[in-house]
């Protein structure tokens, strides 16, 4: 039971890092970026390349991947999303589906379809009471903590972070007040893509890297984002953690093959009962017809 709780915590941490980037884009750019899952895929493949081919340590590989996938996200935003920005959220959404396909196909072309896994020594399990946990697994939860703290500092302590928050809450006012919208957009894409890439590595570490990794993650990311209330970053983090725990704890009582079903069942129930998300306080007017 406690052991399952730890696995849930790890799944939740990974999902939270992935979903945070997605929520960030939803909040500042105003659309659901279906291609976000493919950032995870690219990150996972790059991570494997960096550790196995270049022999980088896992931490260094993670940092390099963060930068690479972040840059890729900025590039995608400039090349693919900017030209159709004026056409509204739904054109952007379908463009992102197109981009997801292109990134998916591109990853297979570059990295192949073989199932890869990280050649990383997890170290000896440390026993905490009845729970066994390896240093790498502690590291995964650590990455989540660092990501939260980093984002908090970024949003609340830096000028750029303030700009991002201003743009998210009222883009027109922010522009009028002289916030450099281009810089904000680029930095948001960079952070979102980078976090996606790191989440991809963590997913790969936790199981293996397959070409379907991105699509599978997209579903769970969407679920977590809606559970947390679209675009509410901390709500989404909490929801992702909740989802990770529920999916793992559910395996204690029902067949493991139903665990993703539990996540989506929870999503549908929440949407129907409380569409503003379980962790949000105020009811938002845009939801109800």
């Amino acid at each position, binding site marked *: 039971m406690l052991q399952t709780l730890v696995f849930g915590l790890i799944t939740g941490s990974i999902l939270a890092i992935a979903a945070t980037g997605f929520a960030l884009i939803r909040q500042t750019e105003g659309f659901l970026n279906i291609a976000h899952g493919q950032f995870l895929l690219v990150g996972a493949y790059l991570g494997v390349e960096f550790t196995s081919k270049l022999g980088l340590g896992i931490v260094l590989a993670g940092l390099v991947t963060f930068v690479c996938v972040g840059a890729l996200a900025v590039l995608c935003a400039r090349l693919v999303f900017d030209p159709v920005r004026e*056409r509204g959220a739904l054109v952007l959404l379908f463009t992102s589906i*197109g981009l*997801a396909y292109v990134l998916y*196909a591109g990853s297979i072309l570059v990295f192949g379809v073989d199932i890869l896994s990280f050649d990383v020594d997890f170290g000896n399990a440390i026993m905490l009471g009845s729970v066994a946990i390896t240093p790498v697994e502690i590291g995964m939860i650590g990455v989540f903590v660092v990501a939260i703290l980093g984002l908090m500092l970024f949003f609340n302590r830096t000028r750029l972070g303030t700009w991002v928050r201003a743009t998210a809450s009222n883009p027109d006012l922010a522009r009028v007040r002289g916030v450099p919208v281009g810089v904000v957009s680029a930095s948001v894409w960079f952070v979102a893509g980078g976090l996606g890439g790191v989440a991809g590595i963590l997913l790969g570490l936790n199981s293996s890297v397959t070409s379907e990794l991105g699509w599978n993650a997209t579903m769970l990311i969407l679920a977590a984002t809606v559970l947390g209330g679209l675009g509410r970053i901390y709500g989404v983090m909490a929801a992702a953690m909740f989802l990770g725990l529920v999916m793992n704890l559910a395996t204690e009582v029902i067949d493991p093959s139903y665990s993703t*079903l539990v996540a989506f069942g929870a999503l549908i129930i929440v949407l129907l009962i409380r569409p503003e998300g379980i962790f949000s306080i105020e009811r938002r007017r845009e939801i109800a*017809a």
Partner: protein
Amino acid sequence: MTGVILFFAGTLTLAGVYAALAQILNLSAGWGGLWDLGMAGTVGIAAYVYTVATVSPSEFPNLDVALGLPIPVGIALSAVVTGLVALLIGIPSLRLRGEYFLITTFAFAEVVRQLMINQSSLTGGTVGLNRLDRPFEDAVTGGNYRYVLLAITFAVVVALYFFMRRLGRSPFGALLRSQRDNEPLAKALGKDVVRYRVLTFALAGVLVGLVAPLYVWYLKRVVPDLFAADLTFTVWTALVIGGIGSFRGPAIGAVFLICLTEALQFLQVDAEHAVLLATMRPLLLGLVLILVLRLRPEGLFTERRAFQRRTSPRTAPLAPQRAALASSPAAMETSEGSGS
């Protein structure tokens, strides 16, 4: 040479199936403005209901339910069940707007797919159900059956086209487009907007139920993997290419897209390049989607053109509203919206 023709007949049949689905999506998403990402789910339900209803228990002893009904009864059952499921999904979720409806239907489709995989006593699990019977199969010799299926599919697509044309120009169609473009106005005219949305979604479900058996006949089998999000996105891409809200667009977009992606399969390559070839389909799909949305967001055929003749000078086109993907200034015939 006959190989080429046979291959082409098969491709056209698949294109026809997608053309039918795209026309149905055009009803709910194009005119109704319901952003449905759950088409794979409804098609999957319809396909499995039809299959389970028509297979005989002696051929599939591992299934809990195998009714062995005649094919027409199976189709009717699939239409009824799929319509009811759509109604059940629609009633609660159509209270929610745009993005939320989109995610609910997306999640619904994923739940359906997981259930198909897990409920193996009903669905045959990941292996699916293979070697299914098809109508008129005894009447013709092996290879020629493709032409029979192509003819049936063609007839269905044409029938759907005229049905949709009729429906689109009816007061019901006008009301649908008016609530999409200007909901307060439709409400002010005394229309129960949510009820019409639910009805439209349920009608789309019934139509999917009628069409899905074609897909089953084409494939001769049902497997959960066929009903993944990829199906939904392909139908959407076909609709976007053809032109959302137009009459001819969905079918022509589907034929164009399927011929484009299936033509690749015709190339004979060695195993080394097979992976390369397999990635061409998603690559093409993605590129086409991105490029069409950027260069010709209204699609090949536009909604404006489709309804042009019917627009009288008095009812001038109103300002483009949120629901039109291509932000096309769709002419509304609100004056005809009464009495439906």
